[in-house]
């Protein structure tokens, strides 16, 4: 089922949680709502579910206005951040809950409910836990049970609030992959909320970046990462080096130095530029190749890549990442004078950052 979010606004007292948000989510997609905490993403998810109401705007489910429809009738599955499993019920009873509370004439036969619960538990690979209680499960297992419980009522839309937020790093990674696989299997339209950019980029088909109640950018993980539409997105996704300067005739002027902007150019005037750590080439010697002169301050060469910390002439720090073998090939060491040539610069007008 497709979801259309139309001009949703929501205010808590003086605080604008959501400000004219519009998003289209095609049927079958897995979409991440990504943003810092307090940006309104969870509120938006709850509005889609019907757990909260918007002050303005509409939620269309499969083209129908669902804004006035009660949660119960929206056919959504919701996975809560802390799972909200019923702790006095067994795992099987938890999963069966949505099927058992249906009005008598819609309710399935008991045998059928049990069959379906078993199938769902197999789907989340935890059928051996059917008779345990939630308190006896690990966090990751609880998360999967919460998902199975949400799926039991065959929702048309699956909504997940910080699904991996409460898990430790290793389990989180496993579960991420598993959720992606599960989605590829069942293909139900899914929206999940996260503040972890890595998670959003790895799992989702599309990412919606939200900041201060507004949509900053919508796009595939590649496009939002490679072509951030706003300074916020550039800053929020992955690490970046920030440069304040001026754009004049196709060059970014940083103090005494100017970096060529190439074909993309940039509008004239005060500007902020972003360069990701892996988008630099390092050339020995100052002034070589029109690059930015800098001195290698520190090198951390652990794992597949080397993190190099350089200081510019004015003392500002720049972070650069290169593959470790490349770094060894270059043969630099701390104290060396080098030039940095960005392969890719994203330039925004300075006003855009302030906004």
């Amino acid at each position, binding site marked *: 089922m497709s979801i259309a979010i139309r001009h949703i606004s929501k205010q808590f007292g003086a605080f604008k949680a959501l400000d004219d948000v519009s998003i289209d989510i095609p049927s079958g997609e897995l979409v991440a709502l990504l943003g810092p905490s307090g940006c309104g993403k969870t509120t938006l998810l709850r509005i889609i579910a019907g757990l909260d109401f918007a002050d303005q705007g509409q939620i269309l489910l499969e083209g129908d206005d669902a804004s006035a429809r009660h949660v*119960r009738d929206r056919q959504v599955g919701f996975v809560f951040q802390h799972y909200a499993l019923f702790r006095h019920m067994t795992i099987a009873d938890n999963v069966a809950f949505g099927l058992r*509370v249906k009005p008598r004439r819609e309710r399935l036969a008991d045998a059928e409910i049990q069959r379906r619960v078993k199938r769902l538990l197999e789907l989340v690979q935890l059928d051996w836990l059917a008779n345990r209680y939630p308190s006896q499960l690990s966090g990751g297992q609880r998360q999967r049970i919460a998902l199975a419980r949400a799926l039991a009522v065959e929702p048309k839309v699956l909504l997940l609030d910080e699904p991996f937020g409460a898990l430790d790093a290793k389990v989180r990674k496993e579960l991420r992959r598993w959720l992606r696989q599960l989605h590829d299997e069942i293909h139900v339209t899914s929206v999940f909320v996260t503040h972890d950019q890595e998670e959003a980029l790895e799992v989702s088909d599309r990412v919606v970046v939200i900041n201060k109640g507004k949509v900053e950018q919508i796009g595939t993980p590649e496009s939002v990462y490679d072509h951030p539409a706003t300074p916020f997105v550039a800053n929020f996704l992955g690490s970046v080096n920030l440069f304040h300067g001026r754009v004049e005739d196709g060059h970014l002027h940083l103090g005494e130095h100017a970096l060529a902007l190439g074909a993309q150019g940039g509008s004239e005037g005060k500007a902020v530029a972003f360069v990701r750590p892996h988008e630099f080439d390092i050339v020995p010697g100052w002034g070589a190749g029109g690059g930015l002169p800098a001195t290698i301050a520190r090198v951390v060469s652990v794992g597949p890549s080397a993190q190099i910390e350089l200081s510019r002439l004015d003392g500002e720090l720049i972070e650069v990442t290169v593959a470790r073998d490349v770094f060894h090939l270059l043969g630099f060491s701390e104290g060396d004078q080098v030039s940095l040539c960005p392969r890719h610069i994203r330039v925004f007008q300075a006003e855009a950052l302030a906004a």
Partner: protein
Amino acid sequence: MSTSVALHASSLERHETASTREPAWVKAALITVALTFFAVFLLLPLGTVFAEGLRKGWGAYLAALINRDAWDAIKLTLITAAIAVPFNLVFGVAAAWLIAKFEFPGKRLLITFIDLPFSVSPVISGLIFVLLFGAQGWFGPWLQAHDIRIIFAVPGIVLATIFVTFPFVARELIPLMEAQGSEEEEAAVVLGASGWQVFWYATLPKIKWGLLYGVILCNARAMGEFGAVSVVSGHIRGQTNTMPLYVEILYNEYNYAAAFAVASLLALLAIVTLALKTLVEKQTRRQLQEITEKSGE
């Protein structure tokens, strides 16, 4: 004004480490003071009740309990509690649901109003019903005309008891339900549960210990209330005597052994109440610990 202990998830013990330990004599002195105070102020009165009750032997003790007047008092006490407790139970659940699950203006004020009966003297709690239903009261003439007796009769005793025990259940449930939050309830709603199903399956299992705790306290007070009931009862033997009132009558007639025999039943009730309370507190504390662990992850 009950002291709600149910809320404290953390253990109520905390033991010293080397750097924070008081000198041994301080510790010994404090423990001695506490134990002495405990023995003189709490144990001695409790022991006295049973000792005085049994002063004239088991025969006299049983005789004091097994007679018409005593039995009538016991019966009236049970009836009063059997009416007052369910009423306040339903109210407590409704009020706690309202206050813990919804946001609305005037909430703090409402909580203060619910607390009111705790800060009203028992004597005044009785007086207000005399002012309403007594011969000179608002409804007095009308009631007299229709030959309905409330004051100096059972309905007055029940009303005064309901007033005095009014906040107990609500007071236990409100902080408990506020601490627990509404995620389970929301999960149940999303899964299609109806209103009663949400309460029955998602809420009740979470609050059952706190609810029981409130009911225990409410019941103890309902059975033991003296001042308010004393004002509205009229002290008619065999008709409007609850156990505490009967104890007073016997005591004022210098029938000490019998007074303490009946009092010992009430003291037993208090002991059972405290035992149940200790048990329930352990349960709620465990439950709340689970919650804090969960949200602390």
